[in-house]
């Protein structure tokens, strides 16, 4: 059996080719379509389409049937990234300058809008089963709704220096902002396209738990030297993101230190110095916040594995199901 990374790469080849077809040609090239091609050509891991295709195969659907939906999801993800980079003032994406750094904010926002619209185009493909397009479109719309609601929560918390947050608040945020379109939608769409139906409640829980474990490990990678390839290090700390480590730190730190943290978070991003960022990271390490996040990811990952067995327990054993399990394990354990 191939490793998860080999599997992802093989699926990513197919998705990249389909995305290139969707954004090929078009005018104005230098102000729009070349920008779109720049971002869609950048090689990400292809986790979302990979998960969708692997789950579709495990459910008995063919790649040919599922590829348009996987492509739609990846195009949607790319449009989110463009806007997300503007909102977070990010400078690097997949090892290259972000689109707004290269072309300015107005053209980047417009490119994101165009890509969100183009995302539905693959669903018009003749390979895609017409009787499923309504359901898949509804799934994409739900993914957009949940993601934008989650993003609104996060941006609002940062804008109003909201600090009195619990693990439940954090997991809800992650559930909406990350899990829905990263893990839940791929699994739900795959189930729609397949011949065999996994247990739907367990499938949603699997998507949620695996997505939460994935996001917490992503938060941890941000503070790990060399952890996030192609992104600026410590960007979450610089942006004042409400990571689970920050929420933990705020809940355990003495009042004077808490006051300092609240002051730091209340500043505009460009006012936060490197020294302050290092100080905040040191406080997280000393308070055991990183170790706590590791434990949290571990517990959620184990729960996700139990949900996997529950969701897919009635499906026939197959190499495709084994591949899907390997991919879910990879998502949960990312390092």
């Amino acid at each position: 059996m191939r490793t998860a990374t080999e599997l992802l790469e093989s699926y990513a080849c197919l998705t990249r080719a389909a995305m290139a077809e969707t954004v090929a040609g078009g005018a104005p090239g230098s102000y729009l379509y070349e920008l779109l091609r720049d971002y869609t050509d950048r090689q990400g891991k292809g986790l979302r389409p990979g998960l969708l295709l692997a789950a579709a195969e495990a459910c008995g659907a063919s790649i040919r049937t599922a590829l348009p939906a996987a492509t739609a999801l990846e195009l949607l993800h790319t449009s989110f990234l463009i806007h997300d980079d503007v909102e977070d003032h990010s400078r690097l994406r997949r090892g290259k300058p972000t689109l707004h750094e290269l072309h300015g904010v107005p053209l980047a926002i417009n490119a994101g809008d165009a890509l969100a619209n183009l995302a539905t185009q693959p669903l018009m493909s003749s390979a895609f089963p017409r009787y499923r397009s309504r359901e898949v479109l509804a799934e994409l719309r739900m993914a957009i709704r949940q993601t934008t609601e989650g993003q609104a929560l996060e941006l609002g918390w940062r804008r109003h220096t909201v600090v009195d947050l619990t693990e439940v608040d954090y997991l809800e945020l992650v559930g909406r902002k990350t899990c829905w379109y990263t893990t839940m939608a791929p699994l739900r769409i795959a189930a729609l396209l397949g011949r065999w139906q996994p247990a739907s409640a367990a499938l949603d829980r699997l998507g949620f738990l695996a997505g939460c474990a994935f996001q917490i490990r992503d938060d941890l990678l941000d503070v790990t030297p060399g952890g996030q390839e192609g992104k600026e290090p410590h960007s979450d700390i610089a942006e004042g993101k409400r990571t689970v480590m920050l929420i933990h730190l705020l809940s355990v730190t003495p009042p004077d230190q808490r006051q300092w943290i609240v002051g730091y978070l209340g500043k505009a991003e460009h006012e936060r110095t490197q020294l302050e960022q290092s100080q905040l990271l040191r406080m997280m390490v000393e308070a055991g916040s990183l170790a706590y996040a590791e434990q949290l990811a571990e517990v959620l990952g184990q729960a996700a594995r139990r949900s996997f067995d529950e969701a897919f327990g009635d499906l026939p054993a197959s190499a495709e199901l084994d591949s899907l399990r390997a991919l879910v394990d990879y998502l949960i354990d990312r390092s």
Partner: protein
Amino acid sequence: MKESERDQTAPISESVLEDRVLQAAEEAFARVMAGVPEQLATMPPDLDLADAIRWAGDRVTELLAGLSELPLESLLGLDHESGATTPMPNGEPVRVQATAGTVAEARVWVHPVGDLASGALHFLLSDLVTASGGTIPGSLAGFTPEQIATPVTAGAGTLLRLWVPAGAAAGCYHGHVFAHGVIGAAVPIVVTLT
């Protein structure tokens, strides 16, 4: 109780932590799923009669399209994608066109000759080599299905999917698809990389 009201500095056991995390996850999951209908594409509840009839008409049309689409796909063999098909009864090699950095696909068939005992056939791909020594490792291939139970009463097919590395040089790569099991078979394969 909020985190800030709890004594977080007190050590807690692993099982207590696990219970607390799972409880928090359940609560958050319930918040996320609140208001999400089980079926997203059901008829909206507030339609007037005319729109409800239109909606139902559309849905019936889609389902009828699906009913005709599925057998048609099966009939034409489109429900399983394949880059090439190979009857190869005469020892002809499977020929596959491929591009570096993409996934090449081909359907490979094994035809039973004589009686077969019960068991299973496992498919494997040898390393593929060019005359000048270029290699694509066989481990980059996958088969769907990976094995077939025997005896088979007709030609048994499997879909070969080969990930061609981005740096692979153009050329003709030769190798074999092996079917191991109650019979042994080696089907020659030529992957032309352009």
